[in-house]
């Protein structure tokens, strides 16, 4: 299989979006182990992280946004409050992860993923508090921080494992 660089990239992005979507839908079917609004495993974030690491900010945002759009269309929450919440949260966490990815000398994908999880959940809580009226975010902060650790470490670790295969698939990195 020898595809031209641009086509290869398009194919790969398509695969990434659909993988993210599948992971998201599978997770939606499973019961949420965390009794907190907005906190979940975030399996789809593995794909976001990989895209960011492999391609860059533009592609990372693309996969994140398309995933949220398609996910809400399939789940029937499009333009509803749940859609707005996950849209904002995805955008912010992608940006935060991109920032930390640039510090790859200091942080591995695990840190990037933890930061992504914290930003994602915090953004969700902020949007929720705006949409629903005031409520005490402060109360959730410690839980949110603690829970971001197992979530971030596990998804970050998985992303690290998959990253090698992705690089193999691509052969050499695109610029």
């Amino acid at each position: 299989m020898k595809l031209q660089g641009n086509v290869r990239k398009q194919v790969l992005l398509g695969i990434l979006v659909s993988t993210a979507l599948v992971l998201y839908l599978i997770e939606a079917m499973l019961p949420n182990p965390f009794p907190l609004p907005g906190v979940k495993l975030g399996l789809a974030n593995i794909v976001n992280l990989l895209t960011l690491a492999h391609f860059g900010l533009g592609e990372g945002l693309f996969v994140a946004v398309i995933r949220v759009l398609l996910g809400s269309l399939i789940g029937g929450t499009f333009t509803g409050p749940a859609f707005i919440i996950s849209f904002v949260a995805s955008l912010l966490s992608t940006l935060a992860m991109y920032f930390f990815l640039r510090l790859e000398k200091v942080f591995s994908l695990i840190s990037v993923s933890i930061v992504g999880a914290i930003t994602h959940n915090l953004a969700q809580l902020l949007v929720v508090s705006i949409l629903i009226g005031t409520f005490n975010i402060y109360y959730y902060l410690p839980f949110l921080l603690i829970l971001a650790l197992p979530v971030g470490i596990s998804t970050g670790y998985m992303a690290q494992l998959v990253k090698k295969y992705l690089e193999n698939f691509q052969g050499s990195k695109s610029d």
Partner: protein
Amino acid sequence: MCSLSSSRSLRKRSLKKILSVAISLLVVLTITGCSLIQPEYEYTSEEFIMNTFINIKVYANSKEKAKEAIQKAFQEFKKIEELTNRFVQKGTAEYEKSEIIKINLAAGQTPVQVSEDTFKMLSLSKKYNKELDGVFEITIGPLVDLWGFGQDKKNVPAREQLESKLKLVDSNRLVLDEHRQTAYLERTDMSLDLGAIAKGYATEKAAQVIREYGIEKAIINAGGNIYALGEKGDEIPWKIGIQDPRDANKLLAVLNLKDQVAVTSGDYQRYFEVNGTRYHHILDPRTGKPADELMSVTVIGEDSTIADVLSTSFFILGVEKSLAYLKEHPGIEAVFVTKDQKIYTSTGVQEIIEFKKNGGYIIDER
């Protein structure tokens, strides 16, 4: 990408490392709690001045500033107390400093030159005496003394006594000279009592001092006169409770105030009972007796002096006349509690009040 790092100098690399750790920590701190970055010190202090507890709470970005502002604010209260106090022992330093005692002693004899603060209080009092049909009366000293309020010799005076003292109560016979800044009581036995304005004036001065320190968030409680400076949080008002006039542990309602004052006059603040009848300290200068329509009135406004003056005046005037006055004076609101357990409010109050579910009171909304 990784190959690039080897070409960089070691110094640059460690610098980058430190910088990145610092930035990441900053990001984590910023997203988890802005309060860690912008400190707000709360500083509270309480002193017994003007026969009551004055509590000042200040929020500032430095402890030293907050402390200093509070100290200066208390000084204002002490200064006004010194000028207006009239129940101090003869021969003491306080006796010499009291300008009200000086004016009272010189009544019928000679005008007394006074400080700017005293003159301001006196001229404001005269102005409101005219505006409010004579119910606001600082020449009420002889009546207060007759009833024994202020000296703990409380008694119910006989009618003849009341009538003779009533003749001495007349603000028209308080002569003020703006150029010389003097005050003169025309009849020998007349005497001033600034009890209904001094606390409000002092609170206003104290709040001014706190503002001059650049402090935008503070709350002054001068024995139930509340000055709510600024707001509690972004778009969050101060919550000021109105006490149930018959149960000190209960609230009648809660007011949402921003940069406003709330002053209450009530028949429960200072009173004595004889044979089951309550005699309180707010005397109607027209009859010489305690005003008897209301249990309490709370005035909400922007100026503490005016709110203090009006709360006493409204208590004497009653609901109807007070509401008529308020119609012509926007920016001032009031909550009245009558003796027949009805609550009346001015129209503007409805947006800032939450009534508590409390036994017995009927809210009359008009």
